[in-house]
């Protein structure tokens, strides 16, 4: 055991420090029926120029995570129960509202799912971009206009100077999403939180927007947290995937590892439930069919010792999972750079693995 720990320490010193790191984050909301945990024990790390995809079904806490990063969660009813969000060494959760104003838009920008409603209908595109620029950069009005024009040009909008005077309703959905991106990137953020940026767009525009984001990311060394539930988008764009279910991370791996050898039954069920090109099937397997099979949870090496994939419908293997004030699941590094969300058990309590942190970038392979 001592050797493992030493090994971990050596490893961590050798690895590059992530620019952005979430550790054991827990967010919950007060409701009439009591306190509801939206995110419980989430950890992830993002390096510069890297795209980390947050994947999961609706309501699994993807957007709450992104909103928490910028402290956009209304408190109350929201509450940060545990954890830290480190951005370049600062804990974002401990910043005051005033300090957050500088971070929002300036260092961490966010783009939203609905381009149709994400722009204020009563102001021109230019007004909105320029306002954001003036807020975060010490420039004159004239320079701000130039920056806005350049930003519009960067996202591929033709005649940018002219289009600055247009209102959002004069733009199509794809163009509006480009404007949103221009607005988010006008202040040169280091991290971009893209909350389902292409969900509302059709497939061609989706491809264009994602390509645009990838280009801009490469040019600016920008990190990106890509929130999506589209596995196709993940496969094409993500470097690292953080698979979520019910507020917990169920699997955390590079995009190749995850798609080739998924370890969590939920991930496996998810892949099985998707049609594959060239495969003839009368009926697809549902996720439930996989997760309802107890044998699926016994496949991890070390199952006997207490390494059991976490699943809300399952009876916890150990009383430790019920200990209050702590997450019932822990991320266990089942093989190098591949984490699986497992029940908190006696064994895992004594054999903790390092926090998920993968510096992998698919560009580096090429």
């Amino acid at each position, binding site marked *: 055991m001592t050797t493992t720990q030493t090994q971990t320490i050596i490893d961590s010193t050798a690895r590059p420090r992530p620019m952005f790191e979430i550790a054991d984050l827990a967010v919950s909301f007060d409701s009439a029926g009591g306190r509801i945990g939206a995110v419980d024990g989430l950890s992830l790390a993002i390096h510069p120029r890297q795209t980390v995809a947050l994947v999961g079904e609706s309501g699994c806490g993807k957007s709450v995570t992104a909103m928490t990063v910028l402290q956009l969660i209304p408190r109350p009813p929201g509450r940060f129960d545990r954890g830290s969000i480190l951005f370049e060494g600062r804990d974002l959760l401990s910043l005051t509202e005033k300090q957050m*104003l500088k971070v*929002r*838009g300036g260092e961490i*920008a*966010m783009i*939203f799912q609905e381009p149709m409603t994400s722009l204020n209908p009563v102001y021109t595109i230019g007004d909105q971009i320029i*306002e954001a620029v003036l807020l975060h950069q010490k420039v004159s009005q004239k320079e701000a206009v130039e920056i806005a024009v350049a930003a519009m040009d960067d996202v591929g909008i033709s005649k940018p100077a002219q289009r600055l005077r247009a209102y959002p309703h004069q733009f199509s959905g794809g163009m509006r999403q480009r404007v949103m991106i221009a607005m988010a990137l006008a202040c040169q953020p280091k991290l971009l939180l893209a909350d389902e940026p292409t969900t509302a767009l059709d497939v061609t525009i989706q491809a264009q927007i994602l390509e645009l984001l990838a280009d801009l990311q490469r040019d600016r060394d920008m990190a990106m947290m890509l929130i999506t539930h589209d596995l196709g988008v993940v496969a094409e764009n993500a470097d690292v995937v953080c698979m979520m279910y019910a507020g917990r991370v169920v699997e955390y791996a590079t995009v190749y590892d995850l798609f080739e050898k998924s370890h969590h039954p939920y991930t496996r069920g998810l892949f099985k439930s998707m049609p594959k090109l060239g495969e003839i099937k009368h009926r697809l397997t549902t996720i439930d069919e996989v997760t309802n099979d107890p044998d699926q949870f016994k496949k991890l090496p070390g199952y006997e010792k207490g390494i059991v994939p976490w699943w809300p419908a399952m009876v916890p293997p150990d009383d430790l999972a019920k200990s209050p004030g702590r997450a019932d699941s822990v991320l266990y590094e089942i093989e190098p750079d591949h984490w699986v969300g497992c029940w908190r058990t006696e064994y895992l309590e004594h054999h903790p693995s390092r926090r998920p942190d993968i510096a992998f970038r698919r560009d580096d392979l090429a």
Partner: protein
Amino acid sequence: MWWTAVVMTSSAGLLIIAHALAALNTDRNDESGKPSAGGATARLFVGAMLLLTASGLVGTLGKPQLDTTDYSIGAQDHGVFALFAPVPHDHTKPQVYLRNQRPGGPYLRVVPWGGSSAAQDLGLTDSRRDGDLAVEAGGSLTLDTPLRALRHGQGVRNRDQPMADFTIVTRSVQRFSVSLYGAATIGDVLETIERTSGGAIQAGISHDGRRVELLDLTAKRSIHLLGTDDVGSDVAARLIHATRVALSIGFVSTGIAVLIGITFGAAMGYFGGWVDILGMRIIEIFMAIPRLFLLLTVIAFIGPQWNQYMLYAMMAVIGALSWMNPARFIRAEFMRLRDQEFVQSARACGLPVRSILFKHMLPNGVTPVLVDASFTVAAAIFIETGLSFLGLGIKPPGSSWGQMLSGAVDPASGVFHWWLAILPGVMIFLTVFALNLIGDALRDSIDPKLKPDLTSPPRRTRKVRVERRHARPGGRS
């Protein structure tokens, strides 16, 4: 200035009628479903109203009030209504002021009111102010009042008259000076004036013993189209002045209400939680306060010496008790807007709360308040009119439609002059009607459900158009 006001008021009146007709017309014949003629007229009308308000504000806040009283007549004149007038003309009430400058001195000067700096030097800016009494406090003038008893006043210097011992400031006669040598009482003064003028000027003491009154029997009388009221004020002029009072109360109090309401409602809607709960309780408390009775209480505390500030007090109280509706509308709108993506995105951009609330959310949520505001203006005008009718609001010499209405019955004789009731009544009706029309027009133009009205039975012309518009090549029919 008088005529500007006349022109503005009449154009406003014309616009009201035009708008009413246009609105009725568009309701009936609206084929396109778009606000066209009615909308344009409404905009014009709003402009005219704003102009009137501006003039009213300038008139109210500025020093000189509209000169509504014609002192050369002083008695009730029935103008174009003379045909119906049962009461004969009465010329007994010229109004003049006597100010003592150096008691016992031998010299009296009479200066005309208008244009002379003498009146202002004497501080006589308001013709009916109590401070203008010529006698010591508590006393009243009789023919036997000795000149010595007259109160000390300031001396007035000007180029032609280095110093006079007494000055009468009057509207009714030309400038003249007489020597009071040997005069000891007021009676002597009056006699001197009559004698010197050769009988052209009648001099006397007002029946309340407050003023010396002069009447130039040879002076030309001015024309009062709508007649004068019981103290000789021109009704037309007072109607116009009352327009300014009513509109400025309406718009200023609504402005106050909307300002408070927006600030309050914005905070409640945006922050929610305990701010919202507390805010709603405060709103409920305020809604429980009857506006009229609080106004009566406030008025009870305003002494007669503060009468000139009554207008502002009414604006403040009506405004302070009308903000609940705007606040609730804004709250509801902001609760809706708060979760809109563009607000989230504004927050994610790092915009400060102030900018999000008032720059991004307010323009998107202010329309219901604008609709409500036009009704609030009408309500405020009603309140002012009602209070003034009861004699509690604007008091003479200020004019108000309500006060003019109540003046239609002569308090002394009990005679009802119906034209004195009709004119302010029509003004109240037209103004409130116009404001309600504006409110309706605004609401209709905002409500998307009302726009293309294809559900009501189409008229012949519309039917043709609708079919033509919907006809598609290869479609059915």
